[in-house]
């Protein structure tokens, strides 16, 4: 019988790796747990760095190229750190019709950042989503996980300014 591969040690003492290991263990370290594991890494650390990708590849016995392929294929996975706050502007059809572009332009004017960027002081990242399903409240944004609807550029900027 084939001996199971010994699992690599966690990259650091950081307790958050325990969460990642728990996810992989729950799926029996199967290769098909890759996406679930990457979700787990991102939830724990906020983004996927090279150390994490290498660790997951080795643990699940999946080539690093495949791990990188999956991590870059799906929009939700971030390969660089985000700011302390994130603002996801929904660009679904309903939000588009109701002025998502104006919201993005407003953010650009105030903070001088475009989609995918983070402010120099690492305070705020701005992202876009294809549709967050809050079409009834368009235009909508998700600030740090909370959805806000029926926004204007002014009300959005006021909200973002109020973040610490």
């Amino acid at each position: 019988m084939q001996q199971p591969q010994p699992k690599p040690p966690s990259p650091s003492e950081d307790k958050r790796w325990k969460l990642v290991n728990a996810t992989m263990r729950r799926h029996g370290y199967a290769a098909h747990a890759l996406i679930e594991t990457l979700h787990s890494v991102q939830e724990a650390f906020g983004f996927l760095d090279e150390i994490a990708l290498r660790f997951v590849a080795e643990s699940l016995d999946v080539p690093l190229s495949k791990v990188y392929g999956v991590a870059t294929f799906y929009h939700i996975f971030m390969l660089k750190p985000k700011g302390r706050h994130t603002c996801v502007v929904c660009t679904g059809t309903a939000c588009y019709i109701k002025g998502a572009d104006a919201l993005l332009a407003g953010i650009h004017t105030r903070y001088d950042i475009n989609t995918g960027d983070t402010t120099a002081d690492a305070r705020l990242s701005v992202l876009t989503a294809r549709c967050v399903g809050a079409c009834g409240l368009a235009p909508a944004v998700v600030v740090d996980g909370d959805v806000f609807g029926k926004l204007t550029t002014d009300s959005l900027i006021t909200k973002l300014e109020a973040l610490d």
Partner: protein
Amino acid sequence: MHPEDLAEKAAQFRAEEAAIKREVRVCMAASCQSSGAQPVLTALTEICGDGKGMCHVKGVGCMGLCSAGPLVAVADKDCDLADSVLYRDVTPADAPDIMQSVCGAPVERLRCSTEQPFFARQQRIVLENCGLIDPDSFKDYVAVGGYSALVKALSEMTSTEVLREVTTSGLRGRGGGGYPTGLKWSTVAKTPGAQKYVICNADEGDPGAFMDRAVLESDPHRILEGMMIAGYAIGANKGYVYVRAEYPLAVERLQTAIRKAKGAGFLGHRVADTQFSFEVEIRLGAGAFVCGEETALMASIEGLRGQPRPRPPYPAEAGLWGCPTLINNVETFANIAPIIRNGGAWFAGIGTEKSKGTKVFALAGKINNTGLIEVPMGTSLRDIIEQIGGGIPDGRAFKAVQTGGPSGGCIPAAHLDIGVDYDSLKTLGTMMGSGGMIVMDDSACMVDVARYFMEFCMTESCGKCIPCRAGTQQMHGLLDTIAKGEGTRADLALLAHLCEVVQATSLCGLGQSAPNPVLSTLRYFREEVEAKLVGE
């Protein structure tokens, strides 16, 4: 377990709450939560107390009228939405007045009529429990007849009889394609295989569609029940729900439902004390539109990049890990329990000749009543937009309604009287899609809208086949040129030609339907497009 045992259980759950005469229901679906429903629920609960009196405050699922949220309904226990006193735009400061109204006169300043067409014209089958029951409560679901279809199927019907009822119902896939559900189930049932899978496609990727989200957030047990009935009918013991990571609340409620159903013995080993076992696992999407395509979705469950593969073989023959797999969308599964409860013939009596039952639509865009509605198939677009939707705001004129997401098209005012079903929308050059309807007023630029959808398809193309990968890029470039007023007649001709090529040669539905928004724009708004050309 027999149906009588379950009925007894349901009666017992109802008896536990017999002291409660009136209910204050607060919509806790994602949309109302975004509008501030949580503080309203907290304020009402504080005033009401421990809930041991005759009145009970509870969080429920979607009531539909998202634009008026947060919504609160005050009703006699067991009364549905139509018979309740509904309040709109509620704030925590309104809580004392609302609690006062439980035993007194309604608070007129907050009233939202349930007699208006938005509510009165609906026929709720899929959404029957939404806004009534607490989605996190197993008891609530059973008390309104939940799991009775499953127990009926397991204890009184053979798998062939289940297949027959679903076939008789005439139900067609609600994910967009409209493939007959009974036929799909029968094919998987007939395919030999020791291991089969049931997949619920909850990767509601069409922008402008949020029906599945509402069902998952409001009535999650309903989906589990539908999946288990499917598993019994086709001979599968394992199911996956592939749900978008963008819907955290839906994921949370589904997890709770799975845990509670398992705890009560209605999921897992020996479901409801029968020989049938069924496990369900949730898999999170990761923000790839193409994963709504069934073969891409299965690749994603297998932990791979979500790239489609050619069909045949169809998932019914070789699906997840090469095993026969049944894949249906959320709304399709939500229709199963009532079909088994009431019979396929009952369901077939609703709707049009070729499209049976009801359809849930998400109304959004430039329309007064945004939210979710459920109407019989065949209801006219005019009824939906002018009556139920309450028309166009700000005194502007209707210009077009977009259906089918990036795979669909825009329908102009001239065709508003058509009854909506799978086939009528197809003849108009669009499609049902999953049910998103985005209304545009006369301020919309149709070239810009077509460019928007092409940009969407271009970015979401998985890159596997050339027609889609390169074609969407080229079409987007041409549309951009035209939108900027720099396009020529030759550009327009090239665009139309590319549409045909991409439609005919792309590998999967994403590419094949990517030209649809452009084609429908050229069909109904050609003058507007031509007016943008150089020298016109």
